């Protein structure tokens, strides 16, 4: 269960010059770019999510076309030189390089966490490439002039990058492998004073903001994967909402891993100044591959006084096949800091990945701040999910609520793991937690592991948990009313998840319905 801990020491054994000279496809010095065939998939990731839930155990991740992209891939392996290479590729300032190196040094001394209820095939951190970038064809003069191949890929994913084709009111940052390929609606957002760009651009254009907040919520030493990310993160999204501004549109990022043997390590930072408001959605897909791929992201949210950040995730990384071969390791650290009367709300729909290790958390630092966590996690095939949240109550009169819906099917293992911590200063703080598990089949498992620490006697913590199955009687009832078994199952499972689906931003809910041609509850009338 505990992965072998060879990683921290091995990087030292790598040749100091980093690039592995036997890797024929790569020549670091000349920028000779390897040609990598990627298998892209069509279908809006959200529709895949819903369909995935619908089809449940036998949902296959089949999409028939592939795209050739010229990709710039670093050799596999991780040493200090790799970190320097990434930083140099991105033309980063010295302080950021030093920050990365500090993280790298920390990571080398750390062990992989072994407390999660996960069976992890040992990860060889030296066989991963830490940098892959699609090589764009000559860039023209507008945002829409993205490499046609990449644009085509996103079109097939159902995420048009042409602004005029965009769903109204959603700005998109598209990230392929390690690099942001485009951000839409930048100009419109700029008028409102909102900065929404790739992390790399932010480092160049707004270094003071990045420097102030990077690592302020998730310090480099926070955990093994966060330290790794801090050392080698490639790109990600950056959002800054100025004082008093309500972001005029939904912001979203689509992550896609394309290249083989690459890890994706993105870094997202959202800063909402006093009295501002922003809603953000991220989606993820990856091609079907036989080997496991590592995705270790860090997301940091800063909600200043009375600000509100709503962060929604629809995660549909490749889950591996029905025998448990392949799939993404999704080891993600997400955390927000809520200042006085601020509100941070996490909503996640986690249907993909071979392994999910993820605990989006809120530090309720300011008085009367609010934290929310709404989660649907589906584990089918041989998927494993150990996910939940941490609500750290520091301020007085802080409130948090947790609604977790775990669905286990086939051989899936689903664990809810959540910490509610009431610090001594958390006068009259309140938490409500509800964990519901749904079991489909006899080989799967559902586990609930709540941790509750209360140091203030005025704090109130409530925890409710339930485990149920989709009853034969429910299916029979639906079928007697004319629905076939699949439709009936989809309806029952969607009903189970309804409280969480209701939290998804309207634009995406509407989009999902349109693409799914599956009406969800409440659509009548």
């Amino acid at each position, binding site marked *: 269960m505990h992965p072998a801990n060879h990683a921290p020491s091995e990087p030292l054994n790598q040749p100091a010059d980093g690039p592995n000279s036997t890797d024929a496809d790569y020549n670091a010095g000349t920028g000779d770019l390897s040609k990598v065939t990627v298998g892209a998939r069509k279908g809006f990731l959200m529709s895949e999510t819903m369909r995935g839930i619908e089809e449940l155990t036998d949902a296959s991740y089949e999409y028939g076309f592939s795209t050739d992209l010229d990709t710039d891939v670093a050799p596999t392996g991780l040493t200090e030189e790799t970190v320097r290479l990434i930083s140099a590729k991105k033309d980063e300032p010295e302080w950021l390089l030093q920050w990365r190196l500090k993280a790298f040094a920390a990571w080398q001394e750390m062990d992989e966490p072994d407390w999660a209820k996960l069976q992890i095939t040992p990860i060889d951190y030296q066989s991963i490439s830490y940098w892959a970038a699609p090589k764009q064809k000559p860039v023209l003069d507008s945002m829409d002039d993205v490499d046609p191949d990449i644009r085509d890929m996103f079109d097939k994913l159902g995420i048009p990058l042409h602004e005029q084709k965009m769903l109204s009111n959603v700005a998109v940052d598209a990230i392929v492998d390690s690099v942001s390929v485009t951000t839409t609606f930048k100009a419109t957002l700029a008028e409102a004073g909102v900065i929404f760009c790739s992390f790399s651009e932010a480092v160049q254009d707004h270094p003071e903001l990045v420097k102030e907040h990077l690592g302020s919520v998730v310090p480099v030493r926070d955990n093994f994967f966060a330290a790794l990310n801090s050392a080698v993160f490639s790109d990600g999204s950056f959002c800054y909402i100025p004082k008093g501004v309500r972001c005029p549109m939904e912001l979203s990022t689509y992550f896609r891993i394309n290249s083989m043997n690459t890890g994706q390590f993105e870094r997202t930072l959202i800063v909402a100044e006093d009295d501002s408001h922003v809603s953000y959605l991220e989606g993820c897909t990856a091609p079907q591959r036989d080997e496991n791929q590592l995705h270790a992201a860090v997301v940091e949210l800063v909600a200043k006084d009375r600000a509100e950040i709503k962060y929604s995730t629809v995660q549909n990384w490749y889950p591996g096949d029905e025998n448990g071969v392949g799939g993404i390791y999704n080891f993600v650290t997400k955390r927000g800091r809520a200042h006085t009367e601020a509100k941070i709300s996490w909503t996640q729909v986690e249907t993909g990945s071979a392994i999910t290790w993820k605990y989006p958390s809120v530090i309720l630092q300011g008085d009367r701040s609010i934290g929310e966590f709404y989660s649907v996690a589906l584990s089918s095939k041989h998927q494993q999910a150990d996910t939940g949240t941490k609500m750290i109550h520091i301020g007085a009169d802080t409130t948090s609520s947790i609604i977790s819906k775990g669905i286990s099917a086939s051989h899936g293992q689903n664990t809810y793991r959540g910490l509610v911590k009431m610090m001594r200063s958390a006068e009259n703080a309140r938490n409500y937690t509800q964990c519901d598990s749904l079991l489909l089949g006899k080989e799967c498992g559902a586990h609930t592991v709540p941790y509750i620490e209360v140091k203030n006697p005025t704090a109130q913590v409530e925890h409710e948990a339930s485990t149920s199955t989709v*009853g*034969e*009687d*429910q299916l*029979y*009832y*639906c*079928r*007697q*009313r*004319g*629905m*076939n*078994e699949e*439709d009936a199952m989809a*309806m*029952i499972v*969607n*009903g*189970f*998840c*309804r*409280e969480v689906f209701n939290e998804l931003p309207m634009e995406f809910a509407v989009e999902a319905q349109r693409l799914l041609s599956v*009406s969800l*509850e*409440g*659509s*009548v*009338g």
Partner: protein
Amino acid sequence: MLHVENLTVSIGDTPILKGLDLGVGAGEVHAIMGPNGSGKSTFAHALAGRDGYEIGGTVTLDGADLLAMEPEDRAAAGVFMGFQYPVEIPGVNNMYFLRTALNSVRRTRGEDEIGARDFLEVAQEAMELVEMKQDLLYRSVNVGFSGGEKKRNEILQMAVMAPRLAVLDETDSGLDIDALRVVAKGVNALRTPERSMIVITHYQRLLDYIKPDVVHVLVDGKIVESGDHTLALHLEDHGYAGFADRDLDDASLSGATA
């Protein structure tokens, strides 16, 4: 319309129905009465297509072999069952459930789906019929419904589905007298010359409100007696004891026959 011939049903090694014969013509309402454990509900579920039964004999609806069909195809063929214990489906809006059900059978029959507006009209009419509170339409299917509300909801579904054959399994159980009256009113309003009904009940009480054309007495897996509604009155007075040990051969009670 419905023909049941020598129907046998076993669950595991236990025979429940032991050769049941029944014919229900278009527009007829048949009541099936019998003591606990006689096989009444099993008969209803055998018609609806529940899993887990070993079935013999033949059942046809308008000449079509019901026993060969999946439950959803029987529904599309016009079979509706009112459940004794309606099932709760958390998070699924009652109205959405109903419309999905209706459109599922319409699709199977090759008909156009009904739009939201037209459906709302159909649903409203059915709501009035069963005197159901508006908010129940927007709550989760049967979740937090009282016993009476659940049964009304079954009749509401029946009104919307407009079946060819309705099988009502102990629809009167657990109802107070007012709810019983409302449910019966709904059933009576849905009687048409084309629609057949099988009303399964323990008690004659329901038959004060729903006048059956024929009453059958089911004892130990067989119909041992058939007659008009006076048979039900006889049962009310004398119970099922007199039927328990009888064979079909010597069945003759107050001259009533099917």
